[in-house]
């Protein structure tokens, strides 16, 4: 996929304007608080990405709504995606027709690497579940629906548990059915993600990386497990087994990265997970998503920095932000106080 044109109005501190993005690697360079992350976030949202936190925060002070427009050339054709973020949320138009977010699934979109990805490795299990769920939801609207249904059923079952467990059996069966399907999805995607992550990690840091699901119950045993632990659950008023309690084990040369990885190793792993996500999406769409790297280059040592730039330099299109122009990147967008200026390099 290639992002050809980006335009916006009223997004955070960005000045109204248009950006024509060349293929290959472009560096967005500017001092702190110039709007580098905002520009990347705008590109990410405009290509269908989902972010945490209230969307209304993204609207500039004093503006009623933010308007984003991208034109992309994908293997599946040329798309014009328009997004309005306002008090009533986010509305999207694909080639001028209003659509739901999930209809953007036909566009490869963007993968956004940012320093916060470190929490996927070093944070609580919830972060890893969220990483995996967001990734799977990107190619399966079914998974997105399943997660919502599971979430809803779980709330109802927990409420029933708190009320002494009346009619709990009815919830058990539905929860186990949704849960089993979620677990199967996760296993399947992980089986495809793990070898990619391993290959990338071996290239970047020499050691092997293994990803394994850590399940409170196997999909076929979920119902059994729910029944088995019912007494304990009644006591505590929460459901103790199922995909909402699971984790993802990240093993560096067989050792648990969550506990043992140094900060530098954890950063490399987080980076590798996102690059693997990018490759998985590329495989799925037969078309590479746009890769956005926010401030991740500066955290790596010299050799890994060069290696990462060598990698992203070979992708169809990528954007990297930095306070100083990274070595060897010729196309530059200079950003100051929300205003960008494109500088074609030598």
């Amino acid at each position, binding site marked *: 996929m290639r992002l050809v044109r980006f335009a916006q109005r009223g997004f955070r501190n960005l000045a109204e304007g248009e950006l024509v993005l060349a293929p290959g690697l472009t560096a967005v360079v500017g001092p702190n608080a110039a709007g580098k992350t905002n520009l990347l976030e705008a590109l990410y949202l405009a290509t269908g990405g989902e972010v945490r936190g209230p969307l209304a925060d993204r609207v500039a002070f004093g503006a009623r709504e933010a308007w984003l427009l991208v034109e992309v050339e994908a293997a599946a054709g040329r798309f014009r995606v328009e997004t309005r973020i306002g008090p009533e949320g986010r509305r999207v138009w694909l080639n001028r027709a209003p659509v739901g977010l999930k209809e953007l699934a036909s566009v490869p979109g963007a993968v956004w690497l940012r320093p916060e990805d470190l929490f996927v490795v070093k944070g609580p299990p919830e972060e890893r579940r969220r990483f995996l769920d967001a990734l799977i939801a990107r190619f399966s609207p079914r998974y997105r629906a399943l997660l919502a249904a599971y979430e809803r059923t779980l709330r109802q079952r927990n409420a029933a548990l708190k009320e002494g467990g009346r009619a709990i059996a009815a919830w058990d069966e539905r929860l186990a059915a949704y849960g089993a399907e979620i677990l199967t999805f996760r296993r399947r995607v992980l089986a495809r993600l793990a070898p990619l992550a391993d290959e990338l990690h071996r290239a970047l840091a020499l050691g092997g990386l293994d990803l394994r699901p850590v399940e409170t119950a196997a999909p076929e045993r979920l119902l059994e497990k729910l029944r088995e632990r019912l007494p304990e659950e009644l006591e505590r008023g929460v459901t103790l087994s199922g995909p909402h309690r699971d984790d993802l084990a990240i093993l560096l040369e067989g050792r648990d990265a969550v506990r043992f990885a140094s900060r530098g190793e954890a950063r490399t792993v987080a980076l590798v997970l996102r690059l693997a996500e990018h490759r998985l999406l590329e495989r799925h769409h037969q078309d590479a998503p746009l890769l956005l790297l926010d401030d991740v280059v500066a955290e790596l040592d010299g050799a890994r920095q060069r290696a990462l730039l060598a990698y992203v330099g*070979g992708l169809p299109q990528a954007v990297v932000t930095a306070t100083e122009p990274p070595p060897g990147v010729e196309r530059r967008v200079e950003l100051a106080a929300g205003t960008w200026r494109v500088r074609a390099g030598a």
Partner: protein
Amino acid sequence: MRKGRPVPLGEVLGELLRRPAIRRGLKKGRVLALWPRVVGPELARLTRPFRLTGGTLWVAVRDHLLAHQLTYQRGLLLARYAHELGAGTVREIRFVVAPDLRPEPPRREPPHEPPPPLDPAAEGWLLQTIRPLPEGLRRPALGLGRAVLGALAAAPRCPVCRGPSPEGGPCPSCRMRMALPAVAREAERLLAGAPPRLEGDLLAAARYRAEAQARARLEALAPRAAAEPDRVPELLDAALALLRVRLGREPSPADLEDLPPAVAGLLRRHLGDRS
């Protein structure tokens, strides 16, 4: 020059030697190194020059007595420095008492083997580079240059980009390039004999990847083909793919001459069958 690429050490060295800070450092080194010659071997064992600021040389001395005596010789010492280095390099000498200064044991030259000679091109380049240096510096620079260039030549290099690769094998940048989907596709194309689409470092990475793939396939097929003669054509195909990647073009019968005659004969016949 593109940034981020390896730069020959010689270039860096030559550039470094011209920098003012380095020149000052070199001057200091020479002044300190000359001290034993200036003061004489006996006194040199009891004293140690340690700093040069402006034109002032600071020398640590074991006790007051010696410091006192030496101050009387200051004029002589300065004159000797002026003789060695020209007037103005050392304009003043201060003696500082340092009670824990132990007499230095008489120095014995450590036996060391001369490093293996550099290849003629590197040696010639080195001689050229050190020519502009001041007289007294050329020999030490030559020694340093030989040692560094020798170590560099012996250091492991990346087989793809020829840059340094401390761990041996392809360097991280080339490993990452080889992991690129576009490079993987290019490797497949090269194995199939299609013309390259990439260029530069990416093409080099694709070549390396293709070659490794072809070799792995050949190695996996060889024992099986030995047991099942039906698979021999597959083995020959793999061998031709490896040759194709190595040569960067379709192999011709002339390319098979270095191979053992039996193998070359088989391959030649296989080439003929295919065309």
